[in-house]
């Protein structure tokens, strides 16, 4: 938003910026969404839509597949080929769909619980295959939909409804896991750094192979409440702004200074044959033998 001072400046001097029009991507009559005030999921959606728009991909060629959770409700609001599936299984439906029609650009929307707990096995196997899927993990450190239980990314010591005395479970680092399992594009962004997030999602979407983006966003309603964050903005500042450092900034910091902070930006990028293309090659070679 512009300040009154800015508005007072003569227009001619200012570069005219056309606001991004989200409406072609939002399904008519499907808003308001179910997300709580202050939830990060809506901010992430804006970055996501801008990234898909920037890619120039026709909406007919985009499929969005999700599991179950607050984040997984995203496909119901956007005008793509959308599939809202079972808790933890988004990646498996997406795998079937992508292999059935490799021309589709397939986005997977999943939560930290959806992707890394119940869907953990599918997550690592997708990374191993390197099928061209863009997996966006909305990581709010908790199970939002079921009201704030411990998730596989909940920080140790934090309170949840199933970790009332402080969580003792060691968390997963989504990015380390994805890289180890073989994903060829691994990055982290936050809802706070929404412009940077747009670029990361764009990169992930354009990348051929399995790309994983760990997106830190806030669940003020549960994680925020139980862990005594003053507000949604306070949460964003503590978890997303101060809780992360960019890969570039990190170069200048000591291990002590990096303690407890998550790295932001592109964390891993490699080249490996993409699964549906490899399958296509197999089909071509078998058919030419006939």
């Amino acid at each position: 938003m512009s300040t009154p001072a800015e508005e007072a400046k003569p227009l001619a001097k200012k570069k005219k910026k056309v606001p991004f029009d989200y409406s072609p991507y939002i399904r008519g009559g499907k808003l308001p969404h179910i997300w709580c005030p202050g939830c990060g999921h809506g901010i992430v959606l804006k970055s996501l839509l801008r990234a898909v728009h920037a890619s120039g991909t026709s909406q007919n060629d985009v499929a969005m597949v999700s599991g179950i959770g607050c984040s997984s409700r995203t496909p119901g609001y956007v005008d793509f080929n959308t599939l809202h599936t079972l808790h933890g299984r988004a990646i498996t439906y997406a795998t079937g769909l992508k292999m059935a029609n490799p021309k589709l650009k397939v986005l997977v929307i999943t939560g930290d619980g959806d992707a890394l707990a119940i869907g953990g096995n599918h997550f690592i196997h997708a990374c191993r295959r390197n099928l061209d899927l863009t997996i966006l993990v909305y990581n709010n450190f908790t199970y939002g939909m079921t009201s704030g239980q411990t998730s596989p990314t909940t920080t140790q010591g934090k309170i949840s409804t199933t970790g009332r005395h402080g969580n003792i479970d060691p968390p997963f680092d989504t990015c380390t896991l994805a890289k180890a399992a073989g994903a060829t594009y691994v990055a982290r962004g936050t809802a706070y750094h929404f412009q940077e997030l747009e670029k990361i999602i764009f990169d992930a979407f354009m990348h051929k192979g399995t790309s994983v983006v760990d997106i830190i966003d806030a669940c003020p309603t549960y994680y925020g409440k139980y862990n005594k964050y003053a507000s949604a903005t306070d949460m964003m500042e503590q978890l997303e702004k101060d809780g992360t450092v960019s890969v570039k900034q990190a170069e200048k910091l000591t291990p002590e200074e990096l303690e407890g902070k998550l790295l932001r930006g592109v964390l891993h990028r490699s080249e490996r044959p993409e699964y549906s293309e490899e399958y296509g090659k197999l089909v071509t070679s078998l058919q030419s033998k006939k």
Partner: protein
Amino acid sequence: MATNKKRFMQGNEACAEGAFYAGCTFFAGYPITPSTEVMEISSSRLPKTGGVFIQMEDEIASICAITGASLGGRKSMTATSGPGFSLMQEGLGFACMAEVPIVIINVMRSGPSTGFPTGPSQSDVMQAKWGTHGDHPAIVLIPASVEEIFYETIRAFNLAEIYRTPVIVLYDEIIGHMREAVTIPQPGEVEVVNRVKPTCAPSEYKPYDTTLGDIAPLAAYGEGYRFHVTGLYHGADGFPTNNTKLIEEAGQRLVRKVEDNKERIWKNEEYFLDDAEIGIFAYGVSARSAKFAVRELRKKGIKAGLLRPLTIWPFPDSAVDALAERVKTIIVPEMNLGQIVHEVERVARGRCEVKGIFRVDTEPIKPAQIIEKILGNGPMPSAPVSPTDSNMSEMLIERDMLDG
């Protein structure tokens, strides 16, 4: 016209061949005895014919992948056995709710749990109907010979496409691994049905629009029809709803679309039933022994007959009803501890006696067991009603047991 090829093949092979005949171009699965051959044959054939084969990390992933693939426009299947079928239940419910045609093959083995993996069984007949939670439609076919597996797999794909719902083919390990002759029809000789696609403009398309009937046309993702699919209760446009009236309507319709068409889905074989006083209601491999028993009993002048369902769900109520009306006793042999017998009792409503023959030692129910049950504990007839295991297998491949 080219003559039809007769091939000697295994039940699981006949299943894969039937699927390819029906136009299946997508297989996702996870290996499990005694169904693995279906997967292995698919892995060899599908890439050669431009289809897709993918080995998934488990059976949950498999059923979900075929559902995704079906929404991408491909006829899709998976094959499994007890433990894998248990894992698939949530995905099965999703496909019912989202109305996505898929075919699931369950080659039944002994359970519960790992049971006796190579041992046959018929104990998933109830799970196939009730395994997934919530009220839902179920179409389950139950062939009894290798050739029948071929044709029933084609029928399974056709029914899945017609009714936009998962169809399960159940057969036991014996038939799955048995080898028999199958006459492979020419392309076009057996009807192959494809799902109805929308013809309206994409902006008009509603994936659950029932103004023209209970089953709406199904577009494929990527064809320009951008639609939404969810496992939540949804309205005609596919979007979630919490309107209790719409939920009631959708829940009713889901079950009704199969229930109202059960006469088209039912398929039974009747054998010596016209004047029967004793009816045997048997399916799958047990029906083969029952057929042998009927012939032996007829030789002794006992009026026995067989009713054999090829569609076990929806349950063949009217055929059993007619049977209960005219016989004194119905015998239900099953390789489980009594599952379908309760359905027979339900339909018979006390009009005749219903007796089960149950067995879970992984041995097939033998004709002698059925004959003994019918003759009571009285003196055994002189006919070879107590065959040894070796002449048992001869009986199982006897040709005229297969035709109706």
